[in-house]
């Protein structure tokens, strides 16, 4: 099976500067030859975010195609966006298609990150759709010579007294080129027939049938395969390669070398896998930098040079500390942990007629285009990148790296599609990890059990080295090319480090100091960034303080909150868990946070015991309040998944390395939670349709870590502060 255009749906789009061509999810590249003129516009054009037709177009059969600049990562953003559009246009979800991020086709929405896709993309689509409805009603009124209030919008059609017209008929093949404005009404707020409901994801139907869905499933005529030959260590220079009899290797097509970047291209995939092995043995590397060895992570992190800054200072800490009845200190740490996508990263690239096409699962096709243009020193207008779903990424995994590597090789081997997929060992050992962090807390209490001061010092490497700033060094191959883009220094952007570093609790005297260090491992954005460790520390510390104050952990938190939504969330968790009665050897614990202190509220409880002398989570409960809920089942699914993933990080995950390189290279050397250890999970959604919706995909990470750790403390009576809990 090869790819072909979906039949006859897009001819209408040739007009009005609104360009879309035969790039459906797996659009054919036959349009390279058939529609060169139109294709050229993919390179020059960027849809304007303010225009309605940039987000929404009416197809020939009256159905709707939505354009989002975001990527489907498994978080279920597609269905949520489809639901908000369906609601505003009163059309079934089944008559809505969604076009994921693609340069020149969809709006530029930067990176799919930070739990912001509902707040940004879905709300832009909602606004465009509500405007489109009002405009379509006006057009129908004029055409049917009726006042708008006598028209009925139903099932994606507008009915007058005598006639019924679908959206395509009303627009006579045109699109709505106007700028979006503030519509009179949002059906999503006033009617809510589709929004808020557990509408099923249409993409699951494709998945269970094994239909073409992932980047890994794309096949083009004459496509060839590639692999990259990795250095033994981050800091290495390729000295020599034994190239004898390469031509005799089965399927061998080309060796691509630039500086210390080495790639191989073969006809068949398994041939590339075998040759990658062989070439690894045939390369000689000069190691420029070894990895450090240390006994104790805390001491090691503190020994690193750091850029220190006071981020928050409220009240008078010194005075409060002096007058304190009780002072308590604790130091927590977390190691480097990995995204560990189940499917190794994959991309396809084609250089043809002086233009570069890339298919990949990047979280940001526009930023990636800019960075690849700089890396290859070609104009942005010569590159086209189409986002195609990959395996779940949970942040900045090697999706961009593999796209850049495929691009480098495509430039050296024009005319054929090159498919590059990383092997498991590469995915584990070369991805950018979530950094290790150190969290030092000191607080004081008065005699009534009120927190009177809190001093928080944290140490962290950066939480983003995304290729978002156009720096080719943020693409792994960028460091090894002839041009030698310098590997990025750590430190840098602090936003991720201090995410959720300020407790939501009302504290009169609070100080936050952050120390930004440059660590030895490649790091970047992992689900919730610094919030995971910050909330973990804060919420464990809250339990420790509650104990000092001889207070119940629920009550102690509520006592220090004046945010009603936060209190409701905790009270709901309390209600869900009132009947929980830990047996001997078991413990119960909670954790809570509002993600980024501005998005969703999430409270988690855990019941932890032991199994074969290791901590075992028996049961977890979660409450999520994300303002207006768009898809209740999606919200639950994300929260359950976040809880299990965080439980796995917290209990057992840690990237290890020796002097040479990462030693966590597969699922045995980097174990994660598996089925026999998965706890029961219950999640309650608090729906607040009166509020704006907020993203929720990262909200459970921090609260879960604290709930599990606090529960383990209750079970054992001794507190572990350095993650992972079972070492």
């Amino acid at each position, binding site marked *: 099976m090869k790819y072909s255009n979906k039949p006859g749906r897009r001819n209408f789009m040739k007009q009005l500067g609104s360009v879309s061509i035969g790039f459906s999810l797996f659009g054919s590249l036959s349009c390279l030859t058939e529609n060169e003129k139109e294709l050229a516009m993919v390179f020059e054009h960027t849809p304007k975010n303010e225009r309605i037709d940039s987000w929404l177009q009416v197809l020939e059969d009256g159905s709707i195609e939505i354009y989002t600049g975001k990527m489907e990562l498994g978080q279920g953003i597609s269905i949520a966006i489809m639901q908000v559009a369906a609601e505003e246009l009163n059309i079934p979800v089944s008559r809505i298609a969604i076009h994921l991020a693609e340069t020149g086709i969809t709006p530029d929405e930067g990176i799919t990150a930070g739990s912001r896709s509902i707040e940004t993309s879905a709300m832009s689509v909602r606004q465009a759709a509500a405007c489109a409805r009002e405009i379509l009603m006006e057009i129908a009124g004029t055409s049917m010579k009726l006042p708008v209030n006598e028209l009925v919008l139903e099932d994606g059609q507008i009915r007058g007294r005598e006639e019924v017209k679908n959206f395509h008929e009303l627009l006579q093949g045109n699109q709505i080129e106007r700028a979006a404005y503030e519509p009179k009404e949002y059906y999503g707020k006033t009617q809510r027939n589709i929004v808020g409901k557990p509408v099923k994801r249409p993409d699951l139907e494709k998945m269970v049938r094994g239909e073409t869905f992932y980047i890994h499933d794309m096949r083009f005529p004459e496509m060839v395969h590639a692999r990259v030959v990795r250095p033994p260590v981050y800091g290495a220079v390729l000295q020599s390669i034994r190239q004898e009899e390469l031509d005799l290797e089965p399927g061998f097509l080309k060796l691509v070398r630039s500086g210390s970047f080495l790639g191989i291209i073969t006809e068949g995939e398994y041939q590339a896998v075998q040759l990658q092995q062989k070439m690894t043995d045939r390369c000689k590397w000069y190691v420029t930098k070894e990895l450090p060895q240390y006994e104790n992570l805390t001491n090691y992190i503190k020994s690193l040079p750091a850029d220190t800054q006071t981020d928050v200072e409220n009240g008078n800490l010194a005075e409060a500390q002096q007058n304190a009845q009780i002072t308590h200190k604790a130091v927590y740490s977390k190691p480097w942990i990995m995204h560990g996508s189940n499917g190794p990263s994959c991309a396809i690239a084609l250089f043809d007629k002086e233009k570069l096409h890339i298919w990949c699962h990047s979280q940001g096709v526009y930023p990636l285009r800019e960075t690849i243009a700089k890396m290859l020193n070609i104009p942005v207008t010569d590159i086209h990148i189409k986002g195609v779903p990959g395996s779940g990424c949970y942040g900045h995994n090697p999706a961009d790296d593999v796209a850049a590597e495929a691009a480098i090789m495509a430039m050296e081997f024009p005319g054929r599609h090159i498919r590059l997929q990383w092997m498991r060992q590469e995915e584990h050992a070369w991805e950018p990890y979530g950094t290790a962090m150190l969290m030092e807390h000191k607080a004081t209490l008065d005699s009534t059990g009120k927190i009177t001061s809190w001093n928080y010092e944290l140490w962290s490497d950066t939480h983003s080295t995304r290729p978002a700033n156009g720096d080719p060094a943020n693409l792994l191959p960028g460091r090894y090319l002839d041009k030698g883009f310098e590997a990025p220094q750590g430190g840098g952007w602090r936003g991720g480090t201090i995410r959720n570093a300020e407790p939501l609790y009302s504290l009169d005297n609070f100080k936050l100091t952050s120390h930004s260090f440059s660590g030895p491992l490649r790091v970047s954005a992992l689900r919730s960034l610094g919030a995971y460790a910050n909330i973990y520390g804060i919420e464990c510390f809250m339990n420790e303080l509650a104990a000092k104050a001889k207070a119940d952990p629920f009550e102690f938190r509520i006592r220090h909150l004046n945010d009603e939504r936060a209190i409701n969330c905790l009270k709901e968790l309390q209600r869900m868990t009132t009947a929980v009665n830990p047996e001997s050897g078991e413990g119960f614990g909670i954790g809570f946070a509002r993600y980024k202190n501005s998005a969703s509220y999430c409270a988690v409880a855990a019941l932890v015991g032991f199994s074969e002398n290791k901590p075992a989570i028996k049961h977890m409960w979660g409450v999520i309040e994300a303002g207006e809920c768009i898809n209740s089942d999606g919200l639950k699914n994300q929260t359950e998944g976040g809880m299990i993933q965080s439980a796995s990080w917290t209990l057992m995950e840690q990237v290890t390395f020796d002097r040479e390189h990462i030693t966590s290279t*597969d699922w045995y050397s980097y174990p994660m939670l598996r089925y026999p250890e998965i706890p029961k999970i219950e999640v309650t959604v608090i729906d607040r349709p009166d509020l704006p919706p907020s993203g929720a995909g990262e909200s459970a990470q921090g609260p879960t870590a604290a709930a599990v750790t606090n529960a383990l403390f209750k079970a054992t009576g001794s507190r572990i502060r350095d993650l992972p809990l079972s070492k």
Partner: protein
Amino acid sequence: METIEIKVNGETHTITADPNTPLLYVLRNELELNGPKFGCGLQQCGACMVLIGSQAQPSCMLPVSAVSGKDIRTLEGLVSKNGDLHKVQQAFIDEQAAQCGYCMNGMIMQGVSISEQEPEADERRIRERLQINICRCGTHCRILKAIKKSIAP
């Protein structure tokens, strides 16, 4: 290179391949099937599982020459001729038992294997059977539910 006959989803295919080629590469690249996925290539994650007879087995290290003549089924082969889904596939949709869905192939293969080999399996046993299958998104509870409700005859 050798000529090898393999029987996949009821059809016999003649392929020319290095006999050591893992079955997974043949299924994905020669037969253009999408069901079995490359996850680790080390038999540690289950993404590449296929049914050989009624046994779910990773295909990423299994030489294609070793399965010649055996009955191999993939995700695609579970769908009936009229397009109806297998009850285990349907249960995954009913329970919305996926996030990214990359691991789903292996989970469904295990589910079908359990339903054919030990449909009376309790949850503990199902969890044991799924030990090899990694899900990184944390969709385990839904997957367990889907398998539990669909394995009974």
